[in-house]
């Protein structure tokens, strides 16, 4: 286990500034998620931390020690690639044992470590198989076991769930959280999926164009995005943005209610909602439309997610309704810079 710091870290490829000045502080044992769209620099940042890319400038400290000049093998990190990168010519057992063999650990010690990692991930029965005889989920577990087996200082994961189907992804997410609780290894997790970021991260760093736009607890970022980029990126669905009296106001779909039908917070902002489409999903209803007060040309679509019981039979497509948002749930942004105003 170790801390990780980066100081004004830059990694450029020619004129492309893939990582463009990142300051990151990861506490011992923390689970931090780097969230961003493809091309935002999150994978390059992780590869720079791993030592697979040389930083153009800036420093990387692992456990307080400057690691810039250390090759990947001496950084005591483990990494799970998106492709899992299992050695196809080795059995699952030999794949997991590989990092220990590199350390020239005695064979009986290797056996006990591999058994420990395999039982932690419940893959003991798969150890004799080669990767091509394993399913996607099983490969992912072997890759995780291989990463855990040498007790790394830092655990790096590059979208490890993106090759799994939706159902498996859900259970794998819970499993990752359990593993982190049990091992307590400092973990840096790269993803473009906000649901993974919200569910897994103790803290989330939202990345854009090689920089960290905002870093903090997931719910805090969700509720108080520092700018419109983060507001639009974090959360599913993203925050609604409406231009009103020269200010962009942002609010989440679940805070947008028909007047008098939602919880009464007293201090409400009133808006007229022109409904375009209604989707009834069972437990909730998605209502798409436009806010009449939106001064943008053309106005941007706004979404309300409402409990079915609240609006059943009340909302019709093509009609206008008075809606309201509690003022405490509203964030204000400067429409020119996109930066938050409060």
């Amino acid at each position, binding site marked *: 286990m170790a801390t990780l710091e980066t100081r004004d870290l830059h990694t450029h490829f020619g004129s492309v500034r893939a990582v463009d000045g990142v300051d990151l502080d990861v506490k011992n044992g923390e689970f931090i998620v780097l969230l961003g769209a493809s091309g935002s620099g999150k994978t390059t940042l992780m590869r720079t931390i*791993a*030592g*697979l890319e040389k930083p153009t400038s800036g420093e990387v400290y692992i456990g307080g020690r400057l690691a810039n000049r250390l*090759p*990947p*093998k001496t950084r005591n*990190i*483990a*990494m799970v*690639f998106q*492709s899992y*990168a*299992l*050695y*196809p*010519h080795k059995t699952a057992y030999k794949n997991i044992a*590989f*990092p220990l063999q*590199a*350390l020239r650990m005695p064979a009986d010690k290797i056996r006990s470590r591999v058994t420990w990692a395999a039982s932690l991930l419940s893959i003991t029965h798969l150890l004799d198989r080669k990767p*091509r005889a394993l399913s996607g989920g099983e490969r992912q577990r072997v890759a995780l076991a*291989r990463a855990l087996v*040498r007790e790394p200082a830092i655990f790096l994961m590059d979208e490890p769930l993106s090759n799994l189907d939706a159902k498996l992804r859900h259970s794998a997410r819970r499993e990752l959280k359990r593993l982190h609780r049990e091992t307590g290894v400092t973990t840096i997790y790269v993803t473009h999926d906000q649901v993974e970021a919200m569910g897994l991260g103790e803290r989330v760093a939202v990345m854009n164009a090689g920089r960290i736009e905002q870093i903090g607890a997931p719910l805090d970022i969700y509720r108080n995005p520092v700018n419109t980029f983060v507001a639009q990126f974090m959360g599913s669905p993203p925050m609604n943005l409406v231009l009103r009296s020269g200010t962009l106001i942002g609010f989440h779909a679940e805070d947008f209610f028909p007047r008098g039908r939602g919880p009464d917070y007293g201090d409400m902002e009133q808006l007229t909602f022109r409904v375009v489409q209604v989707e009834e999903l069972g437990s909730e209803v998605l209502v798409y439309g436009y806010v009449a007060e939106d001064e943008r040309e053309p106005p941007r679509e706004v979404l309300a997610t409402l409990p079915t019981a609240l609006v059943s039979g009340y909302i019709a497509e093509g009609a206008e309704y008075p809606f309201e948002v509690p003022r405490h749930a509203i964030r204000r942004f400067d429409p020119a810079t996109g930066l938050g105003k409060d």
Partner: protein
Amino acid sequence: MEDRTRVKQAGWRAATYAGIGLFTLFSAMPFYVMLITAFKRESDLYDPQNNPFWFTEPPTMANLDLLFGNTKFLTWLFNSFLIGALVVVITLVLVIPAAYSLARLAGRWGETLGIGIFLTYLVPPTLLFLPFAKVMAALGLQNSVWALIVAYPTFTVPFCTWLMLGFFKAIPRDIEEQAMIDGYGRLGAFIHAVLPLAIPGILTVIVFAFTLSTSEFIYALAFVQNSVEKTVSIGVPTELVRGDVFRWGSLLAGALLASIPVSILYTLFIDQFVAGLTALAK
């Protein structure tokens, strides 16, 4: 319904076996002709009334006596294998690092350079043997197997570099980087993670380099005149054809004996080779 599918399956199977049978006949025919001619008397061979596929006169050992008694056939065989083996070693030593660097380190230039190197393979030996003869003379290697050991890598290396380039490119970079994170340097990662996956490619290179150098004719003809320095591919046609006299029996006996070890080598490799290729594809 079931009967019809069964008939259909039987038909397919029959067609498959017929195809395989024809192909086997096609491949085995040259061996059969070589084998039978090796034991035929000249009078039997040259009489157009006789069945060419069987003995009309009793078989004879005279052809083999001539081959082993009056020529340096065993020396030629040894020379061919020595040259083949050394050329394979030289080719592997040069090709593996070259192809790996072109595949990994040189970026987009790698492929262009690889194709450039391959193009030199297309310059025919008929054009090159004249300047090469001068080079060999300058090196003092004329009339020696060493001239061939030096000359043959000039065509095996370009071709095999291009071949290995493709194999190395097919190995995901992730696997190598994973090995570097798992505790190896670039060389260690190469040896432990890349090389085992490149085995089908290495086998292909061995087979190609060996075949190309044992069957080469022009350089061997141009650089070697001394009988004890000759290879099979040049010794058999030069010493068993005198003027317009063809010693067919001994000639084909020599060809047969030289081709048996090569076919065994191929048969041994082909399984590993296909297994390796399919493993890589998954």
